[in-house]
């Protein structure tokens, strides 16, 4: 047994931490910074687990989770896009359909769906049917869609046409719209994908949001004085902070376990469910610690709270 990260994993963590820090000061509730995406690409982070021969970095799933987890603490929308993009390249590791430095839109399926679209095999082609939310921060012309195929889940590349732009509760920077696929022809990349990478990476984003929530809540509670002392001196606050920290550690361990080579897909499903709940509970408490200030856009916790809500359906 060994709970330590490898040297490689630590290096990746260090790199993303530094990169994320330099983006901390920017407004992140309206769109993902284009420079950030470029920098992620330049550092090989758009193909963390992808085959090096195709331009990927060839790292393990935990390295991807680490990247997403770090980035989510600064920009959760960017982290989820990063998670989805990398999951696509991982699911499709040996196909040339994806260029690892080009971010496609990702749509109903990863990670946001409970109304999974379905794909029909029409003999000479596949058609996709369904409706859902698509994140398209960089104006891609096609979306990668997870659709059910006779009990399996397949991955399809679907042309994007008309879509209604939407402002969901959170992760707004990912640039969302709703699309309806009514029998569009789609390219089938795989008719049976393993969702382990996607779920693990998205769960890592949820843990990152939770951690950022704890950070904000603790920072605020240490400064804010009521009844003559900082909020952190109240045992009620201390108990909250202790619960938050414990749940975050549990969630991160779940993600790390799910990322191991031996873990089955079901472990990633559990990690995502658990981390989604922890993200919501933690950020909710952290907002509460801010009192009225937490309800305003002046403090990052307001955005984190809305971001966490996008994980409600997964919990």
């Amino acid at each position, binding site marked *: 047994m060994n709970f330590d990260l490898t040297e490689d994993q630590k290096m990746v963590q260090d790199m993303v931490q530094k990169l994320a820090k330099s983006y901390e000061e920017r407004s992140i509730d309206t769109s993902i910074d284009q420079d950030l995406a470029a920098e992620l690409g330049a550092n090989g982070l758009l193909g963390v687990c992808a085959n090096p021969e195709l331009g990927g970095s060839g790292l393990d799933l935990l390295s991807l989770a680490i990247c997403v987890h770090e980035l989510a603490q600064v920009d959760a929308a960017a982290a989820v896009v990063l998670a989805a993009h990398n999951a696509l390249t991982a699911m499709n590791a040996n196909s040339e359909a994806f260029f690892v430095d080009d971010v496609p839109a990702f749509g109903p399926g990863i990670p*946001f*769906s*409970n*109304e999974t679209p379905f794909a029909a095999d029409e003999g000479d082609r596949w058609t996709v049917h369904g409706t*859902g*939310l698509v994140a398209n921060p960089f104006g891609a012309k096609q979306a990668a869609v997870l659709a059910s195929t006779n009990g399996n889940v397949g991955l399809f590349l679907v042309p994007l046409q008309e879509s209604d732009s*939407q*402002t*969901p*509760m*959170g992760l707004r920077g990912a640039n969302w719209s*709703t699309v309806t696929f009514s029998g569009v022809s789609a390219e089938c990349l795989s008719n049976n994908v393993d969702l382990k990478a996607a779920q693990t990476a998205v769960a890592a984003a949820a843990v990152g949001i939770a951690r950022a929530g704890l950070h904000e809540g603790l920072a605020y509670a240490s400064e804010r*004085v*009521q*009844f*003559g002392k900082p909020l952190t001196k109240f045992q*009620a606050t201390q108990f909250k902070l202790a619960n938050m920290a414990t749940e975050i550690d549990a969630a991160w361990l779940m993600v790390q376990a799910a990322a191991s080579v031996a873990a089955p897909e079901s472990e990633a499903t559990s990690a995502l469910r658990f981390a989604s709940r922890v993200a*919501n509970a933690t950020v*909710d408490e952290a*907002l*509460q610690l801010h*009192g*009225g200030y*937490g*309800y*305003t*856009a*002046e403090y990052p916790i*307001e955005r984190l*709270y*809305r971001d966490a*809500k*996008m994980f*409600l*359906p997964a*919990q």
Partner: protein
Amino acid sequence: MNLQPGPEQLKMQNVAREFATNTLRNTATELEKNHQFPLEQLAEMANLGLMGVNIDTKYGGSAAGVVGYSLAVSEIAMADPAVAVTMCVNNMVAEVLAEFGEGEQLDHIAEITSGRYPAGSFCLSEPGSGSDAASMQTRAVPNDDGYVLNGTKAWITSGEFAGVYIVWATVGDGGRETISAFVVDPKSDGISWGKPEEKMGQHASNTVQLSFDDVQIPKHSLLAEVGHGFKIAMMALDGGRVGIGSQALGIAKEAINVLRQSGHGQAAERLADDVRAAELLVWRAAWLKQQKRPFTKEASMAKLYASEAACRVCEAAISEMGYSATLPAQKLEKLLRDGRVTRIYEGTSEVQRIVISREVMKVSA
């Protein structure tokens, strides 16, 4: 025992329900989008008697009691929580004036109930004192003409539109024993406000920070006596918590409705238990207040449970309905954004727990 509202109470509920259904349901989305204060809607509500539900008819009120008030607030909140909070504060200010006011102070009540004032404001919180309201920094220094007010009030609901403020301050250099309440004309020289707070929800309610900069107010501004202010505030907040509990209850009920209407009947039934518990706690607090019995503990229970249930139910509903529920078209995300603050204002959930436990321990002592 009879836990059902009576005919008079249901009449008030129906008035509110009709207005909510015919008007507020149609305007809520636009008001929210434009961050627009609902002047027209508030005026119509005043005409319907909703701005002084528990106020004597001699002041233009509806005299429909606290239960009638609670039912009406929930109905309004189901359609538009932001309008409901404005209604709550208006009613609370009118009730404080009716209970503690005298002479000219009482004239403001009819201005609120008639809608000639779009709103009244309750100015207690400050940037540095929320839960610990008693550590306020605002000072009222007596002089020959009355008092000179200096200080900053934070989070003032309707502050930009109110026709009257009730402002809390310590008198002279006094400490918390001198906390007093003053009835203040918002047009007085030296009062200014900042731009509205950018809130997560309730965009159609107005929340501003008020500055009082050498504001001369007349002697008769003082409500009751010097040093009575804190008690007035706490009594007002007990009543206010019935209002906010009712608002939260309305939000929770609406979330259940959304679930039912979108074919998630089973989940709706499961979650409805939580809402029913909240409803009974809210109605009991309202009834006790109406009976003029002690209701501090029960008001805190009502507010605590209903506000927590509102958020719980909205979240469970979003989990149930999935990603489409995170979009504005489904209403749940707005209900949650609007509802989240019910766990913060008029005493946070933690403050309610402090109040409840204090009362509980009194009994065993």
